[in-house]
């Protein structure tokens, strides 16, 4: 099976600055893939290389088997990119913008699909409004719509929910999930890790131009061993026997980390023995954010060493 996206040893230098350092990545058709990393990790540069907005210094990238440089016309036809910047052409209305964008892809009679996108992105009321007159959130919707006019099998969204209200975020993800179910490959970057965790089946984490983690979302979360429990106690003192498990203590809440859930029983037993009463108890599940913090932190300490 031809991968939806194939990136081979991509390096990118901007003068003396290394933006990407030997990226290898393969994303299969139908995946919902997250590209995560702190600002400046190289996510957008990588997306720009896929889209042909930036040329790689070395290495190659393919979309559905088509090289983004040698076979750029086919590669771009198969790719829809929602850029991060809120850009628009102030000369046109929403519908005109979408008709023009369709035309760039060689599509003349695209009205029924344009209507459908407009409907799904809740743009119907604004279809004949000039782009200038739209709010930021509305402009963001149009950007998404523009990336979809040619029904690309591979859709890349670069921080589509940055500065977007809850309603649009939900509507947007509903639509994108629908597209994913219909067979479109989705790649997204976001700083909202709960979004990535809820939506994506596979995750790559980038740091300083390198892939530092690449696995299924579930495997990454499972890699965090153990569980945490958050307690509020009366009296507000932690028995000495439990001190080794303490990972944080903040405003009357103690967070204890255990290797396995069964150890929670021992914790409760120890509390009972010390005649400490549990006022509140919360089990903390490891999540993608924890993995992210751990991976970003650990590579840092490796570099320091």
């Amino acid at each position: 099976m031809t991968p939806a996206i194939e990136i081979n040893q991509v390096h990118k230098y901007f003068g003396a600055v290394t933006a990407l350092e030997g990226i290898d990545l393969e994303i299969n058709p139908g995946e919902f893939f997250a590209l995560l990393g702190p600002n400046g990790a190289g996510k957008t540069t990588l997306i720009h290389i896929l889209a042909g907005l930036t040329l790689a210094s070395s290495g190659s990238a393919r979309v559905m088997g088509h090289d983004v440089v040698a076979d750029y016309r086919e590669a771009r036809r198969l790719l829809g990119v929602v850029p991060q910047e809120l850009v628009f052409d102030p000369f046109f209305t929403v519908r005109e913008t979408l008709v023009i964008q369709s035309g760039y892809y060689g599509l003349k009679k695209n009205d029924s699909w344009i209507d459908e996108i407009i409907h799904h992105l809740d743009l119907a009321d604004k279809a004949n409004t000039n782009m200038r007159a739209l709010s930021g959130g509305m402009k963001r919707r149009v950007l998404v719509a523009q990336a979809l006019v040619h029904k690309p099998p591979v859709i890349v969204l670069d921080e589509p929910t940055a500065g977007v209200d809850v309603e649009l975020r939900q509507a947007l993800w509903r639509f994108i999930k629908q597209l994913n179910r219909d067979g479109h490959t989705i790649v997204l970057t976001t700083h909202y890790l709960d979004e990535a965790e809820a939506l994506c089946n596979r995750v790559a984490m980038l740091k300083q131009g390198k892939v530092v983690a690449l696995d299924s979302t579930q495997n990454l979360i499972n890699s965090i061993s153990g569980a945490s429990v958050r307690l509020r106690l009366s009296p507000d003192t932690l028995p000495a026997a439990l001190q080794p498990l303490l990972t944080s203590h903040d405003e009357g809440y103690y967070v204890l980390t255990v290797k396995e859930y069964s150890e929670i029983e021992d914790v409760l037993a120890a509390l009972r023995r010390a005649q400490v009463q549990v006022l509140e108890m919360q089990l903390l599940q490891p999540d993608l954010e924890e993995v992210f913090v751990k991976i970003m932190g650990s590579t840092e300490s490796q570099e320091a060493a």
Partner: protein
Amino acid sequence: MTGFYTLFHKELLRFWKVSFQTVLAPVLTTLLYLLIFSHVLEDHVQAYPGVAYTVFLIPGLVMMAVLQNAFANSSSSLIQSRVTGNIVFVLLSPLSYREIFLAYVLASVARGLVVGMGVYLVTLGFFEVPLRSFPWVLLFTLLGSALLGALGVIAGIWAEKFDQLAAFQNFIILPLTFLSGVFYSIHSLPPFWQSLSHFNPFFYMIDGFRYGFFGVSDVSPYFSFAIVVTCFLAVSWLTLKMLKTGYKLRH
């Protein structure tokens, strides 16, 4: 073809939607030039024997309007798209660099033609301007506006900011147009300036264009044609090369 045609059409709409600024304003400015220069110089200057100065001036001013507006169209469209970032929609699309080139250049030609026609038609209401050879007129209009349209693409890509584009316009395009013989026949110049004028490609565009009206010119229209075609090919080659390599567009 649809992709190219869409971009071309969009570029036409872009200036047509603001035609007050992009068509009417330059027509008015050119007519003001005509009014003032003809008023001041009519009795003092005769460029060609038997041709009134005002009538001599008209084709030059028409061509100047054509050239300046052709340049303004592609260059301002590109710099605006780049500064606001919406150039990304063209760059993300499968449009080839040749299609992008053709669309921008042809839209420039269209704007040049519309403005030039506007100036010409208004002056026809007041003056009798002979028209010896329409093919020459058309040929030089098309070539001149295409050349300036391509130059506009180069300037629009090269300039990072609006003031750099303004510098390109004010320090290169404007002096070359003003010193090209729009307002005078170069035969009236001292020998040094006369020979210097022969190095100005704009001179050949104006001179050849004027030949179409009067059947008289400073140099042979065939020679002018050869020079303008050569310039157009050279500038087009450079423009295509810039677009192909993604110079300042694809980093």
